[in-house]
């Protein structure tokens, strides 16, 4: 509880410590969003950079006026008129939501078993969950291409044991995207779940059983409610990045799967339509603001509770 404005704290040094990262983030993180916002209101042209109007300060005040009057919401109207964009948003949210539920179903038993494992091997298990996260997402997604493709290992295996006679077409479908997202983000689901299950007091279950509750009932009445903070944290932690995912739908989803991250990327690199991709980015941010704010809210309440 030391007084931050303790006597003698060098104000110059203080501002240098605060100012350096502050300025960096202002210039390289916050300012770009305003540029994105500005360009999303501009028009596409074939030029370098491929948008207009440009702010021409050499024309003085008239330049500012021209620039300002050239901004409009045209690109946003386009987003609402063209079904492609609308579908992209909806299907991103849908795919992310379904993947989140799938991860919860797979992750919960894993986290539960980890928490029940002998104390000595628990750190090793946590390590084993984290390890894949350190390897590149790209590599992990790439690994699935070799497995899922029509001439891939999964089909080769299933054909060989005679379970199927025709190769399954999983690659370039939404199923492949689900597999990819679940696989890539599973650690983010398991870790918060494990954290909340691990600190669960074992004597609570003993007390429940002492009071006559059978194990399966204790699980629903005690374990599950007490692990809810982990469930919430895990779900947000995988849902938010999954909505904006690009690499997975691009490599595993083929042309059929629409996801907004991929649409933005294509709009930018293939169509070179900077204003429209900026508008997509702004809308994507608006979509994500709600879950991000909710998540922050939940997290800060957790921190408060710990105090």
């Amino acid at each position, binding site marked *: 509880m*030391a007084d931050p404005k*303790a*006597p003698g704290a060098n104000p110059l040094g203080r501002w240098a410590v605060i100012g350096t990262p502050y300025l960096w983030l202002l210039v390289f993180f916050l300012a770009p969003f305003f540029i994105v916002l500005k360009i999303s209101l501009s028009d596409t042209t074939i030029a370098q950079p491929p948008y207009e109007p440009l702010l021409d300060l050499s024309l003085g005040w008239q330049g500012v006026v021209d620039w300002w009057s050239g901004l409009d919401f045209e690109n946003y109207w386009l987003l609402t008129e063209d079904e492609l964009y609308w579908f992209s948003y909806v299907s991103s949210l849908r795919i992310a939501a379904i993947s989140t539920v799938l991860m919860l179903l797979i992750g919960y038993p894993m986290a539960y078993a980890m928490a029940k494992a002998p104390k000595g091997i628990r750190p090793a298990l946590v390590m084993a969950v984290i390890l894949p996260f350190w390897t590149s997402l790209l590599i992990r997604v790439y690994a699935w291409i070799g497995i899922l493709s029509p001439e891939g290992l999964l089909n080769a295996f299933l054909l060989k044991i005679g379970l199927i006679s025709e190769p399954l077409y999983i690659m370039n479908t939404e199923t492949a995207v689900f597999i990819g997202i679940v696989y890539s983000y599973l650690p983010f689901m398991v870790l918060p779940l494990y954290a909340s299950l691990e600190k669960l007091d074992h004597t609570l279950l003993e007390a429940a059983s002492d009071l006559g509750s059978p194990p399966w009932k204790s699980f629903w009445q005690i374990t599950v409610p007490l692990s809810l903070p982990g469930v919430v944290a895990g779900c947000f932690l995988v849902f938010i990045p999954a909505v904006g995912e690009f690499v997975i739908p691009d490599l595993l989803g083929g042309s059929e799967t629409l996801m907004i991250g991929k649409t933005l990327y294509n709009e930018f690199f293939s169509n070179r339509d900077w204003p429209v991709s900026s508008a997509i980015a702004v809308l994507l941010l608006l979509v994500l603001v709600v879950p991000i704010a909710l998540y922050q809210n939940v997290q800060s309440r957790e921190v408060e509770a710990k105090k």
Partner: protein
Amino acid sequence: MALKPAQKALGPIRRSFAPWLDPSAVPLIRFENVTKRFGDFVAVDDISLDIHQREFFALLGPSGCGKTTLMRMLAGFEEPTSGRVTLGGKDLAGMPPYRRPVNMMFQSYALFPHMSVEQNVAFGLKQDGLPKTEIAERVTEMLKLVKLESFASRKPHQLSGGQRQRVALARAVAKRPKVLLLDEPLGALDKKLREETQFELMDLQMELGLTFLIVTHDQEEAMTVADRIAVMNHGKLVQVATPGDIYEQPNSRYVADFIGDINILEAKVAGAGPAGLSLAVKDPAAPITVAAPEARPADGAEVAFAIRPEKMRIAIEPPPADAVNVLKGEVWDIAYFGDWTKFLVKLEGSDTIMRVSRANATRTESAPIAWDDKVHVWFAPDAGVLLTA
């Protein structure tokens, strides 16, 4: 009930050392009308306090009473919201902790985990830029003082709790500060070690001739080590006095209750009595006679009579004929502590329980007092103290 010089209160009094009684003595530390607020919370409320050179002074109170905040304002970790703190006549306002000639022993010891015992003790000396040889000398001297010479190159985590405590102490006194601040210094030690260390601390203070300011919530600790104690509550000083006076002459119900065990009887002043003052106890309705204090409360005033369990007598047979203040009751509970026994006596015609303790001076007793026995309890008129606050 001010004591006449002949009837000095008991307690560890160093008769030759009482600078606070000398009006011409200049105190080393002065808190002048110091207030500290944290937002809406008033941690320290308008406190004025003088502490003298070479005094062992204790701030005693429950957690959250402001004692630690008061100490931290002296160390420089907090600035007073208003009022001033002076040290040797110099106002400390605006002086950062690293320039103040006081050092602190932290509750957690705060030993630097990445430095050896030696480096920890040398840390403060290095900051002063002393020559290497002098630092080495002083470190050796300090480690000898706390009997840790053979542990010089150990890291803090390789030491036991008691050893860590001594390293923290050596580190804090190495700079020979004007004042050594001790924040709950023995809180982490077990009971036996704590008692031992209390005496070591007192010896050390005498040996070094430093001024010690200790913060503690443990009244026994404060009573053992300190020359004077300031009892605090809700950011205010309740009483500042020697341990003996605090125990025998509490100035309020709060202090009486906080220090040790005590019986408090609510009463009304009935008038002059044979021993000074006659009181009408409310529950059970009984007259008692007590020694009159200097400022005699008016007749009819609401007062409390506080008496410690060991100042009372208990027996089954009636007390000697000259006994005053005899109350009858029934033994409700008995707690045997080995060296002494505490009886809880429910007074006749009331729900009031009196605590009476008795030293077990003999090993056996022909007719011991047992549960449900009818007993008499009695006390002398000057055995307790009259409280008006």
